[in-house]
């Protein structure tokens, strides 16, 4: 039998999603290194909730369980959501967010392949709008907090809501680098002085900047495996960089350097893992460029002028709404025709 060595089987959804999960591992490993193992608890909780909700919704919709439960897409949603919310969040926060993401944002719209919005970002948006106070329990990175919680203490807080006696929540949590920047600038402190605060590292937040590098590593792996194309990360990060750069050049005293924005918050996670979602994103290369550039610009605007700590989630959702329009206007001409009007 003659088989060409160049013919390969097309990747299944399950294999693609598994690689996305694999690509998240370096980021997660660095996360654990800097912030302790609490994030693993929320990832586990989110995964279990996602699979249970997925199974329940499939049953309600009379769909076969096996092919859909095994496609790992629910796990990707769960992991991305868990990585977007504070690791010390109470257990029910993770459960509510994931259940909402899978049931409403995914299955009510028709399940995998039909959801117009990124489910994990819907989950995040619901949580930050509904429970803003619980969404601030960000752990301080290793070596920064006055006290550090052991794994048992972290578990006790996540499930029971109480800390060891003598320790206050403020002692183990910190506002995120983006949040601190915004509030301190509002207090009219000079930018140089703010960036000298111990929570800031070489580029952005101490710890979180390294985690961002871990996400880049995973992103490069996905690019190499051709699961994502360069368009979305390049256009998103490029626009974010250029927008931040223009503001920085005009007013260096009030607008932080563009590299800060690239490595702070969820920018890298968004560029390689969230905006690259093939379902809620556009289909054509040109469309991807427009989509990601819009998201980059909106992220900057929401971060700097908006009321929320980070802008990636809302920028993603806003651009998700534009996808049908973008897709309709970026269809390439049909082969053999000169103009685009191939209707």
């Amino acid at each position: 039998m003659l088989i060409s060595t160049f013919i390969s089987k097309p990747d299944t959804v399950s294999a693609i999603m598994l690689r996305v999960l694999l690509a998240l591992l370096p980021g997660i490993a660095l996360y654990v290194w800097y912030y302790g193992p609490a994030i693993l608890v929320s990832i586990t909780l989110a995964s279990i909730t996602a699979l249970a909700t997925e199974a329940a919704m499939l049953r309600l919709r009379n769909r076969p369980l096996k092919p859909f439960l095994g496609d790992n897409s629910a796990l990707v949603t769960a992991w991305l959501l868990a990585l977007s919310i504070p690791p010390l969040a109470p257990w029910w926060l993770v459960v509510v967010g994931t259940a909402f993401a899978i049931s409403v944002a995914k299955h009510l719209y028709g399940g995998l392949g039909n959801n117009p919005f990124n489910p994990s970002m819907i989950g995040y948006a619901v949580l930050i709008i509904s429970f803003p106070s619980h969404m601030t329990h960000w752990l301080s990175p290793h070596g920064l907090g006055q006290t550090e919680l052991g794994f048992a203490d972290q578990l006790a807080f996540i499930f029971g809501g109480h800390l060891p006696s003598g320790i206050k929540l403020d002692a183990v949590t910190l506002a995120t680098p983006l949040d601190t920047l915004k509030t301190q600038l509002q207090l009219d402190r000079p930018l140089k002085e703010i960036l000298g605060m111990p929570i800031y590292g070489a580029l952005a937040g101490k710890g979180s900047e390294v985690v961002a590098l871990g996400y880049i590593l995973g992103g490069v792996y996905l690019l190499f495996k051709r699961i994502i194309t360069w368009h979305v990360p390049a256009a998103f990060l490029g626009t974010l960089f250029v927008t931040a750069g223009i503001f920085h050049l005009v007013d260096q005293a009030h607008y932080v350097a563009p590299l800060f924005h690239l490595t702070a918050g969820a920018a890298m996670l968004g560029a390689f893992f969230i905006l690259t979602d093939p379902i809620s994103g556009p289909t054509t290369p040109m469309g991807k460029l427009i989509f990601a550039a819009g998201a980059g610009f909106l992220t900057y605007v929401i971060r700097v002028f908006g009321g929320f700590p980070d802008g990636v989630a809302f920028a993603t959702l806003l651009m998700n709404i534009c996808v049908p329009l973008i897709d309709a206007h970026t269809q390439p001409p049909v082969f053999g025709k000169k103009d685009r009007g191939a209707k």
Partner: protein
Amino acid sequence: MATQYKTIVRDGLWDNNGVLSMLLGMCPTMAMTTSATNGLGMGLATAVVMAASGLLVSMFRSRITQEVRIPVYILIVAAMVTLVDLSMNAWMHELYKVLGLFIPLIVSNCLPLARLEAFAAKEPVLPSLMDGIFMGMGFTLALTAIGAVREIAGAGTLFADASLLLGPAFKFMEMKLMSPDKGVLMMILPPGGFLVAGLLVVVKRILDVRAGKAIQMGGAHSAA
């Protein structure tokens, strides 16, 4: 005759419910259902307007010509809304401060207009009055239900400030079900309105299917 009224009542309250079946008047539905009391107040105001304008349009139905009927309907509805608006300002001032902004919007609510065009313009006076009352009551029912769900989930109360609407004797209706900081803030905000309204439409359809009724799919004509 009796069966005709029975149909009007059942259509208005359930089978052809303005919000849950026809999906009409979505703007006040979304805006005024942040609490059960707001929904109830808005619903009752709309019901009064619908009953009065149904009565008037039906009385003048032979005089109103085909060409100018829509402006005439709008004028009649607007006059009724102004009456309700002024009376509420005079006699229920506290509630007016909450609902006031939205009362003039009843004019642009397409549920009264739809009923005038579809019913009062063709039917005798008494059935038209009945249709206005019961369509309005159905609207009230839906708004109160949506408001109740949003209020319980979002603020942990039920019928808060009901005494403003119905008088101090109704103080007993005001319930506190859980501490307000446990509420899901989103339910009070606009997304909660769409979610709860959508889910209640689903609940109604499930009940209808259980009862063996044929449900109309895609029955929504317009939304305002």
